């Protein structure tokens, strides 16, 4: 509907898979505290689970992914390096776990146990990455901040306001960093930096302006926030959790317990 406007930058920031997408799905409306606890429980269970449990959790993850309509392919494309890395780990596992070899002739040092364990590890890591991705895409950073603040509050000696503000500022800063990198790269490419084959030369000429730019940007951002009275206190966000939220959380927790105990 709207043409893509603004700097080339905005577009770059738009491609980050790990960023919030505004929408009104069930997952977006799920109370952030319950959602956070559910996702933590699911991640921990994933680490513990065996094949059957992983299958169940996969079903949950696939259902959750279906809420991020149209972005599935993009997500896997953006995660391609991670998936490649996991595949590498899988191969190493396959070869390094002792057990009965799969191939006798020609002899390849892969074991059945290795394939099973490597496969489980691959699967687990992918599930955890997807879980955190679903959480971040469906939760506003401001909600995450509020939830963290409330979780930290009962713990003594933790300055929860400041901690939560720091975490959200970090999330807020990621698109700015990516924009900055893209702009510097483009500007240097237009002056033919690609003719230089020495990677150290190129890294030096990327990082120096990058950090100078980032400090400047960070300074401006801090100033702008200060001018709008940013400080320790602010109106707390209203979080509302209904019966349905607690019911969902209970379901998830019971499910996780069953998977771990089975």
């Amino acid at each position, binding site marked *: 509907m*709207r043409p*893509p*406007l*603004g*700097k080339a*930058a*905005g577009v770059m*920031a*738009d491609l980050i898979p790990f960023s*919030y997408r*505004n929408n009104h799905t069930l997952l977006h409306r799920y109370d952030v505290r319950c959602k956070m606890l559910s996702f933590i429980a699911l991640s921990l269970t994933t680490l513990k689970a065996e094949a059957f449990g992983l299958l169940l959790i996969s079903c949950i993850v696939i259902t959750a992914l279906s809420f991020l309509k149209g972005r599935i392919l993009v997500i896997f494309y953006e995660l391609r390096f991670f998936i490649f890395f996991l595949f590498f780990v899988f191969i190493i596992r396959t070869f390094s776990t002792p057990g009965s070899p799969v191939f006798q002739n020609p002899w390849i040092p892969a074991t059945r146990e290795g394939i099973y364990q490597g496969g489980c590890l691959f699967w687990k890591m992918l599930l955890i990455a997807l879980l955190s991705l679903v959480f971040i895409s469906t939760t*506003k*950073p*401001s909600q995450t901040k509020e939830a963290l603040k409330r979780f930290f509050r009962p713990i003594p000696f933790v300055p929860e306001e400041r901690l939560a503000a720091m975490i959200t500022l970090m999330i*807020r800063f990621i*698109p*700015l960093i990516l924009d900055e990198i893209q702009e510097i790269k483009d500007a240097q490419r237009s002056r033919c930096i690609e003719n230089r084959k020495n990677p150290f030369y190129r890294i030096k000429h990327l990082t120096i302006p990058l950090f100078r730019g980032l400090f400047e*940007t960070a300074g*401006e*951002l801090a*100033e*702008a*926030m*200060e*001018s*709008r*009275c*940013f*400080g320790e*206190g*602010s*109106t707390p966000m*209203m979080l509302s959790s209904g019966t349905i939220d607690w019911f969902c959380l209970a379901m998830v927790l019971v499910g996780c317990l069953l998977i771990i105990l089975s």
Partner: protein
Amino acid sequence: MNVIEIQNLTHRFPDGSLGLDHIDLTIRAGSFVLITGENGSGKTTLLKHLNGLLFPTAGSVIIDGKGISEDPLHARQAVGLVFQNPDTQIVGETVSEDVAFGPENLCLDRNEIEKRTHDVLTILKLLPLASQRPHLLSGGEKRRLAIAGVLAMKPKVLALDEPFSSLDYPGTKQVLKQILSLHESGHTIVMTSHDIEKIAAHAERVVVMKKGKVALDGPPDQVFPDLERFGVRPPCALRWGKPLESWLI
């Protein structure tokens, strides 16, 4: 009544250089003041004093009856400062969240925040974009969002630093129209610009700065003929002996 009273203001930066040099300036409530001057003449530094982001090395800045050094929070609420680069002043994940940021920091209650957000978005015609991500807005929309963000704090004075920089023609017209209608609704407007063409027809008073000092101060028809000497290009119409014309026509 004077909403801003600056007396003998001097600001020295930590590195020892002089940013502002003995400035005296009073601004009447409801007026429209254009501050101009070449790059590095101290316009931005002056605006940051109105908002309590910088403090005087000597002299005083009194906003709406209170000194900025005594009560910076009062100054920040009374003067809404819109920065030159809108990208670094947008902090929300969505347009409406960004507008709510200021009122939230004032610890207003949730209903009041929602009401203000809605009102301000309506005034600046951003309501259809309320749930958009700010980074995807156009230049003119971003600038209007930046104005909305400070307007939600109900400031008396709106201080805008180079509000037309890097805007295209439609963007400039959108922003100009909003600024003028805010002025009509009673806000005091203080605006800086090194290029006065776009605003020349509307300013009631022009302050020219040079090297941290106020070099000229007066109504446009008195100040404009002298601008050339201070590194600012006088409006085209003047050279051709024609009356100034608004960009909105």
